[in-house]
C-alpha cells in the first residue's frame, strides 16, 4: 500500500444525508453542498471540523440498485471505507491489485471530489478503500 500518500476522508453510509448531518452540525461541523453522483448512484456530502478527519456521507438517494443500499442492509448506518490520496489512480490500482486488492469498477470522475478520478477497491484483510487522484 506504498502508493497511498495520505488519508483524505472516512466514508460513511447513511440512509439520509440531512438527518445524519444535522447531528454533526449541532456539534460544530460544517457540511458541504450535496452532490448527485449519478455514475456511482449515490448522493454525497462532506462534513468538516478543525482537528477531525473529513467525513463523507454517502446515501443511496433515489437511485435504483445503489451500492449503498447493500452496505446499509449489511451494516446499517456506519463508516465503511477509508479514502486515500494517490498520485495516479491507474498506477495505484495496478499496484494494489498485485497486493490482493480487487477493483470494484474502472476509475470515474467524482463530481463531489472536484472531478478528480476515484476508484474503490476491496481486500479480504483490509476491507474497502477508495483512492482519489491528487
Amino acid at each position, binding site marked *: 500500500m506504498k502508493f497511498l500518500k495520505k488519508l483524505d476522508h472516512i466514508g460513511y453510509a447513511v440512509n439520509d444525508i440531512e438527518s445524519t448531518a444535522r447531528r454533526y452540525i449541532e456539534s460544530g461541523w460544517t457540511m458541504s453542498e450535496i452532490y448527485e453522483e449519478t455514475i456511482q448512484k449515490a448522493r454525497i456530502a462532506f462534513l468538516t471540523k478543525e482537528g477531525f478527519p473529513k467525513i463523507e456521507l454517502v446515501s443511496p438517494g433515489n437511485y435504483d440498485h445503489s*451500492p449503498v443500499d447493500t452496505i446499509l442492509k*449489511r451494516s446499517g448506518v456506519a463508516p465503511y471505507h477509508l479514502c486515500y490520496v494517490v498520485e495516479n489512480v491507474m498506477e495505484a490500482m*495496478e499496484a494494489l*491489485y498485485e497486493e490482493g486488492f*480487487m*477493483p470494484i*469498477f474502472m476509475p470515474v470522475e467524482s463530481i463531489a471530489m472536484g472531478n478528480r478520478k476515484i476508484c474503490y477497491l*476491496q481486500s*479480504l484483510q483490509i476491507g474497502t478503500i477508495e483512492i482519489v487522484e491528487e
Partner: protein
Amino acid sequence: MNRDEIIVRLTPIAQNDFEKQDMILSDEQSSETVDTWTSFAFMRFLSDIEKEFGIKFKMMEVLSLKTIGDIVEAIAKH
C-alpha cells in the same frame, strides 16, 4: 477445458462463496440476479477460482467479469 468441465468445477465454488447450496449456474447470473452476490462474495469467488484452476486473472479482465458466462469464458481462455 470445455464449458461443461468448467461448470462442474465452478459450481461447488459458487455454491460455497454465494452461500447457496442449491445454486445451479447459468450464463446470465450476476449481482443483479443473485441476492448474495456482494462485492466481497465476488472477490472470494474469483480468488477461489484462481486457486481451483491455477490461473491468475489480469486486473482489466476482472473489471470486465459481470456474469457467470463472462467468468466461464475467461477461465476457458486461460
